[in-house]
């Protein structure tokens, strides 16, 4: 008698079909890389800068413009600056003028103060319609101190009160520029 044993087996897949040959890993790592470069930004905090004169003896007009600035210069060899330029002279005519004042001694000048990184301009600086003039300078590896609020700067203006100005309202445009390398 010949015994025949028949085994009945059922093949089962022990894992999900398509993942059978790819189990993956329980962890994965990735390297996050970032490269900050020299950058600069500024905001003018005044909506406008009125110049006013107090008293009656042709005292100079004065006013101030506030800035908030952010800067990062290159670690080695970097630099930066804040400058300003009168990009539109006073108008209408017959009032003050930066480019062609009624008298040679008339001028729109400013002094600078900084609260933060950088070196402020020295003394009184006469503004110009033809060239940018200095407000602040930054050396290598300069970084804004206050963040996110930003560092602050102020330009305090003085405009000669020349009696030759006809009465009325006159406006000029000053453009501030910040740079960093």
């Amino acid at each position, binding site marked *: 008698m010949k015994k025949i044993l028949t085994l009945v087996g059922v093949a089962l897949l022990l894992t999900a079909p398509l993942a059978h040959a790819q189990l993956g890993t329980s962890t994965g*790592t990735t*390297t996050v890389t970032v490269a900050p470069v020299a950058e*600069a930004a500024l905001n003018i905090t005044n909506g406008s800068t009125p110049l006013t004169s107090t008293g009656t003896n042709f005292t100079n007009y004065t006013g101030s413009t506030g800035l908030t600035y952010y800067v990062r210069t290159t670690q080695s060899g970097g630099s930066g600056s804040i400058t300003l330029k009168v990009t539109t002279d006073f108008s209408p005519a017959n009032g003050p003028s930066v480019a062609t004042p009624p008298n040679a001694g008339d001028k729109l000048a400013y002094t600078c103060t900084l609260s933060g990184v950088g070196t402020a301009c020295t003394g009184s600086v006469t503004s110009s319609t033809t060239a940018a003039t200095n407000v602040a300078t930054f050396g290598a590896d300069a970084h804004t101190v206050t963040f996110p609020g930003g560092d602050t700067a102020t330009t305090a203006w003085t405009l000669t009160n020349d009696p030759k100005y006809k009465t009325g309202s006159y406006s000029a445009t000053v453009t501030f520029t910040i740079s960093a390398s």
Partner: protein
Amino acid sequence: MIRLAPLVVWGALLLAPIRLEAATLTTTQTLQAVISPLGGLFSFPNSVTLAKTGTAFNNFTGSLSIQYRERTTQSTGGGTITVKATADFTPANGPSIASPPHAGDALTYTCSAATLGTNCSGPLTVSTAASTNVVTFSATECTGGGGSCSTANPNTVTVNFTLTDDPKYKTGSYSATLTFTISAS
């Protein structure tokens, strides 16, 4: 004559056709497979670069897509994909997850488009001290095949990173390591 009878009988018996009967014995063996919950990360990107465009000092951003497969226990299972900064940014003097130059600086992320599970909404802040959520799986979730499982195989989720651009970071290149972990129960 009588002596021949037994011989005849024996001969008849010997000559009679012998019917062969094979005995068949059947037995069964039970095979049991225990299908366990399982999760795996596949084709994992080994780097992501954070970059920026436009306005000075706006945030650095970058994204990476993760592929995964998951199977959770029916009725009671669950699982997660989490992320942790296992190495902070180096070298020093740049961004830092654990000790940023200013309190508001952070490496944050949002998650989107998970094809299995529920992705985080965010923004969440990456930490060196603890893992934070990317995807959450519930019971009876599975990859591939459609029906009660996902159609997509493998599954994917996108992680979108944002890093504060603090002016205090010195110029240069900085790198951190993030470790993603998948689990299933």
